[in-house]
């Protein structure tokens, strides 16, 4: 919205001599009387002249009228062109506004009347009563001359009045052609004068953004698009889509393909993505696009239209398939010198604790060994080596076989699968390592191997589809744990792929009356992941039927929550597309109905920042329920999911969660730490850290456990020393409580995840894009944490591995045109919001210079510190291809 001009605000650009002039206020008479004497000779003369013109305008002689109007116009123009305060001519003419208006009415239609209309239009700038829009109405009957000649302030005021008039006319269904003509002029004027934001505001008000396309040029399109995309976050649907659409078109028009691709990915519009490829001819640039798609984690097939040459296409598809991710990650690890494998003890650092260290009991504790398995897996994730699972089996200190068997029963599932985590993204090596478990006749080990195959393939695609080939046959085996291993493995490996072949394997399980509940629950989850955000009807049907078939007793089981969650994931971020399914869910058994409703709502509006949905969910949390209802947990998580998309929303949400801690019921308090964990995932804000630290000592152990896991989540992959210290102290505080200690260990593993090279945040590309698979993984874990005892502390602890979907290196790795790592200096600093700022403002502050590859923390941004190369993407994250700058001169 263009601000209505405020006559009381005096800009700094005012001329010196004007400083003495008081701006007209509400009681002009009194002041005018006083000032009469203060006027300088010059001003007095001007005033007298203007009074003379006013008189002459009313003269019956048209020549005199014309001359007077002309003079008046010149006086006004001369003073308004670069004015921010109220110009003197306007001020001196104020007392005569009424006179002129009255005279204008008596005038017959003529050129002169039009001229007077123009002048009255300008005078109305300060005189018009609120809501009268006189400036606009006089303008419309005026000469339609150059709008800018009356000055910037006039144009802004006019724009404001147009917006009001437009709404009025829309409601009356009156024609708007005359308005649109004015809009054209105003937009053209704004776009030429560095006021892109105002132009966009006006066009949004009159709902005609397409006009922008005509007016953007090389100098202003970036600022325009920047404003458009950031405004989109605050617009209600479907306006936001429209806005992004326009900015996509603008970017395409100016061949700013990386940005266009970003928006295409945001819109989840494959057609647009394709168009980016077909429009760009440069192969190297296309490679950069592939890196961007790969980071977003969607499945995308290149065709011959996009890349003609078969070899090129193969090379590009390889990048989209993320086959180079492991290599890049290890390059980063070698550069930072963290290749050395770490043991859980290196993470626990028990020697730093006074006295009450863990006693190092003589007998293995299965629970603590399981915790060590997870810590080892998370910490060494993707490094391909560790000290428990991959040590050569002949070593005397404890072979891989040995550690595996130091886990009890279902613990062996997680232990075997941890090998997949250690080999993350390196499919060939991972499969080679996991092979030996395939021949085990111990079902948990086999199950773990299957899950491990899924994990190692997370985010990686391959023509051979090794995960499907290996896991497919196990989905229907006898043993439940083997089935779950295969099902979960498929879910992780093919998240977001919408692979029909797998659906045809999983759907029958969901509707198999004989299948055990846990198998069905995991099948639903995996289906939800594979079709995440697809709104696939067939998949939804299968889950809905599965939900309807559950008996009363089964609906009370903790694992049943995965069924609605699987359903919700199908609609992740797809807003109103969920409505039909939400309607169906109203027919469910009342035990699960509300839970399902909340889950669907929160998933569908995840990452949208939709304020209305936040209010809906808050209302749900405000109720005080009788015992047994569990739907408030997902409602609290939903609050975080909806609000997590932008900083402002996050801050507001954190505040309202604090309230809930104070006034909410116990089941709400248990979910609040998890919601905080989601809001600040891999971003340890000090205030949130303190809140969680306080909750980690809560008398309700469920709250404490949730808070401890969340401490791990907010610090995931940061190596944050303060968090590490807090958790270490917690490990000594809870050394006697096996369950809480387990949670502390998991959190310690998370904080040191990937030895500090990884992040869990589902947002990337400067927090603009939200990876649906990543969010799906985190949300699944959080839902599991709503009831810790039967799931994570029970025998389904391997749901922790769903986090792998969100694990990504938080790196910036520059490569040359052959995609080989290339080290260049970069500045890394806190990102600055530059939306709506004129000129070329600094984008980072408090920076340090490093050479690539570098780590980027939450809220940090990088920029190249050399002119020798040009990055092929303006968003310096992940893999960046550098092109040599042809204009570069060595100094």
């Amino acid at each position, binding site marked *: 919205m263009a601000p209505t001009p405020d006559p009381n605000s005096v800009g700094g650009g005012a001329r010196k001599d004007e400083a003495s002039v008081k701006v007209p206020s509400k009681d002009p008479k009194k002041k005018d009387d006083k000032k009469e004497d203060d006027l300088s000779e010059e001003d007095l003369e001007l005033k007298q002249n203007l009074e003379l013109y006013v008189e002459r305008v009313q003269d019956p002689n048209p020549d005199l009228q014309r001359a007077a109007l002309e003079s008046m116009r010149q006086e006004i123009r001369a003073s308004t062109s670069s004015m921010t305060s109220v110009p003197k001519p306007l001020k001196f003419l104020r007392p005569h506004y009424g006179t002129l208006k009255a005279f204008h009415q008596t005038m017959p239609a003529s050129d002169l009347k039009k001229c007077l209309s123009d002048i009255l239009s300008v005078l109305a700038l300060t005189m018009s009563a609120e809501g009268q829009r006189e400036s606009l109405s006089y303008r419309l009957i005026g000469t339609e001359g150059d709008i800018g000649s009356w000055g910037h302030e006039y144009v802004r005021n006019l724009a404001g009045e147009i917006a009001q008039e437009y709404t009025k006319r829309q409601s009356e269904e009156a024609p708007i052609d005359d308005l649109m003509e004015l809009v054209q002029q105003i937009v053209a004027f704004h776009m030429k004068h560095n006021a892109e934001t105002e132009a966009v505001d006006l066009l949004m008000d009159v709902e005609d953004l397409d006009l922008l396309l005509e007016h953007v040029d090389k100098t202003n399109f970036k600022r325009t698009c920047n404003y458009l995309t950031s405004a989109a976050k605050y617009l209600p649907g479907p306006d936001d889509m429209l806005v992004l659409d326009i900015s996509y078109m603008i970017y395409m028009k100016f061949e700013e393909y990386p940005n266009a691709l970003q928006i295409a990915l945001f819109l989840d519009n494959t057609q647009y993505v394709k168009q980016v490829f077909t429009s760009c001819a440069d192969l190297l640039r296309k490679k950069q696009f592939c890196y961007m798609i790969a980071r977003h984690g969607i499945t995308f097939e290149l065709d011959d239209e996009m890349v003609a040459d078969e070899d090129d296409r193969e090379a590009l598809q390889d990048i989209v398939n993320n086959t180079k991710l492991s290599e890049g990650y290890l390059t980063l690890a070698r550069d930072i010198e963290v290749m050395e494998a770490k043991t859980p003890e290196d993470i626990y650092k028990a020697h730093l604790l006074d*006295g009450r260290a863990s006693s190092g009991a*003589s*007998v293995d504790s299965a629970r603590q060994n399981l915790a060590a398995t997870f810590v080892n897996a998370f910490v060494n994730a993707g490094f391909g080596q560790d000290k428990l699972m991959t040590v050569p089996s002949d070593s005397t200190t404890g072979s891989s*076989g040995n550690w595996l068997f*130091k886990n009890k029963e279902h613990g062996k599932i997680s232990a075997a699968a941890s090998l997949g985590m250690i080999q993350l993204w390196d499919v060939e090596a991972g*499969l080679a390592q996991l092979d030996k478990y395939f021949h085990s006749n*111990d079902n948990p080990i086999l199950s773990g191997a299957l899950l491990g195959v899924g994990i190692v393939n997370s985010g990686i695609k391959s023509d051979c589809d090794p995960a499907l*080939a*290996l896991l497919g*046959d196990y989905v229907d085996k006898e043993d439940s744990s083997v089935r779950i291993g295969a099902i979960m493995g498929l879910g992780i490996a093919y998240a977001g792929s919408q692979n029909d072949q797998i659906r045809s394997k999983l759907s029958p399980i969901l509707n198999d009356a004989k299948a055990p509940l846990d198998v069905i629950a995991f099948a639903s989850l995996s289906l939800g992941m594979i079709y995440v955000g697809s709104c696939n009807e067939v998949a939804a049907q299968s889950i809905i039927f599965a939900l309807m078939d559950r008996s009363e007793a089964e609906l009370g089981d903790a694992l049943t929550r995965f069924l609605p969650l699987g359903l919700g994931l199908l609609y992740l971020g797809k807003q109103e597309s969920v409505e039909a399914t939400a309607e169906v869910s109203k027919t469910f058994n009342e035990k699960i109905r509300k839970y399902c409703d909340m889950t669907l709502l929160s998933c569908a509006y995840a990452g949208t920042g939709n304020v209305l949905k936040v209010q809906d969910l808050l209302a749900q949390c405000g109720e005080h329920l009788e015992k047994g209802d569990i739907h408030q947990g997902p409602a609290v998580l939903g609050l975080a999911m909806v609000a997590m998309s932008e900083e402002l929303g996050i801050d507001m949400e954190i505040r309202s969660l604090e309230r809930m801690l104070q006034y909410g019921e116990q089941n709400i308090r248990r979910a609040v730490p998890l919601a905080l964990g989601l809001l600040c995932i891999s971003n340890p804000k000090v205030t949130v850290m303190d809140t969680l630290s306080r909750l980690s000592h809560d008398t309700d152990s469920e709250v404490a456990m949730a808070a401890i896991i969340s401490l791990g989540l907010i610090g995931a992959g940061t190596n944050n020393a303060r968090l590490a210290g807090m958790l270490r102290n917690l490990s000594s505080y809870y050394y006697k409580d096996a369950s809480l200690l387990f949670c502390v260990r998991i959190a310690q593993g998370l904080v040191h995840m990937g030895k500090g090279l990884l992040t869990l945040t589902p947002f990337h590309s400067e927090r603009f894009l939200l990876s649906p698979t990543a969010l799906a993984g985190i949300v699944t874990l959080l839902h599991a944490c709503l009831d810790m005892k039967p799931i994570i502390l029970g025998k389904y602890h391997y749901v922790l591995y769903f986090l792998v979907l969100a694990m990504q290196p938080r790196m910036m790795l520059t490569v040359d045109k052959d995609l080989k790592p290339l080290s260049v200096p970069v500045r890394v600093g806190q990102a600055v919001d530059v939306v709506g700022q004129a000129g070329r403002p600094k984008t980072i502050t408090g920076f340090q210079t490093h050479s690539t590859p570098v780590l980027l923390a939450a809220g940090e941004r990088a920029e190249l510190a050399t002119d020798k190369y040009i990055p092929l993407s303006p968003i310096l994250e992940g893999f960046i291809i550098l092109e040599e700058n042809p204009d570069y001169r060595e100094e």
Partner: protein
Amino acid sequence: EPLTYDISRRPSNSVEEEPKRNKNKLVSLPSLQAIKQEASQFKMLTVSVKWQKKVFEGIEIDVSLPPYVFKAQLYDLTGVPPERQKIMVKGGLLKDDADWSSIGVKDGQKLMMMGTADEVVKAPEKAIVFAEDLPEEEQATNLGYSAGLVNLGNTCYMNSTVQCLKSVPELKSALSNYSLAGRSNDVDQTSHMLTVATRELFGDLDRSVNAVSPTQFWMVLRKKFPQFSQLQNGMHMQQDAEECWTQLLYTLSQSLKAPTSSEDSDAVKALFGVNLRSRVHCQESGEESSETESVYSLKCHISHEVNHLHEGLKHGLKGELEKTSPALGRTAVYLKESLIDSLPRYLTVQFVRFFWKRETNQKAKILRKVDYPLELDIYDLCSEELRKKLEAPRQKLRDEEGKKLGLQTKSSSKDGDVKMTDAEAPSNESGESSTAAQQEGASSSEKGTHMTGIYDLVSVLTHKGRSADSGHYVAWVKQESGKWIQYDDSYPSVQREEDITKLSGGGDWHMAYIIMYKARFVSM
């Protein structure tokens, strides 16, 4: 290279009737295209197989033969036996007996193979026992220490005494042998009850994971020793731990005496008793006499000169007493100098930190810092005879330690030493069995092990506060695992060994009041 390799390795039976053999053998890379053509003519497919990090290019498949043959080809290349090979083709696994035409492998396609010749993992032969599987009492032992004791209201003096005494396994076993039947007539009812209560309490502590409430024991203790029932403001008063320790040990020693009531079978005395031989000398008259006595603990007197336990002990073994001198016919000052005549398995030392201050009518506390070592050698406090007996075992111990440190003593001198000890051994043995038998009683079963005069610290009872009847008592006990555990009433916690020696006083921190050393034996 793989190209020619493949062709030559192809199973011979399949190629015999094909006339192109010879030509193919000579093929070089440029004619790859030609081969491919031929291959397709004869229903041959050329594929590449990715295995681990390697890619095998140009492997030919004869589609007329089952995939098992293809697997055999791969076996040659990778060394992975066919049954362990998993070949992935478009989301499916290649079956040994599948039909190539139905699989739909295309010429030039990339296949992926998984499989290793690695050994299949096997469960360890000995199943691993997890703490969670054990019954509760065993879980307790697996913590590496036993449970704490609940404070029943100023009972920390008792709790810490019990914890210290409980760390003596021999006492425990002696108690477990104690039964009603074994009750000798000269043991009164309350002593008997206290002994049983002690036995029960020790048992409870071993079985439990959580803190044990010593209600029964406390009741019996107060019954036996009414002085512990003193009330102050309606609360039971804090008591002196040393008194509790001494009284308890005394009671146990009475009741644990074997029914045969021979003096030798006093188990408690055998464990804790120190025989002192004292020379009482009167400077005025020149009279001299010697006497022996048996005590349960040595006293460490703290004066201005005492900075170390050793000095305090020496100080404690010297004393002046007034008694009637028969020669002078009046009381005279006698000097009493004691030396240790026999060594206990457990040497208890009491720091005499409390004295009665008349001005305040209170037991006041000496805060002076007195260091004590983790390893105590009392050789020079021993009598001449005892020293002689200790010579050989000590030498042996030194040798063993030297060996442990890797110090090579000259083989000749070593031989000599061994001979010497050998020669001395019989006499020693007989000497010990005669003198030690009566003192050590229970330990006579452990023939072949000898005292060395060297002791290791095993428990410390500390006091924190300014007077004996106030403040707080805590026990610090070394476990069999070598870990130190602080028993602060119901909270046991692991401590570092270096912190144990810091309990030596000189401030307001916990300071050692009663410490107990365990004898180090050497087997000969």
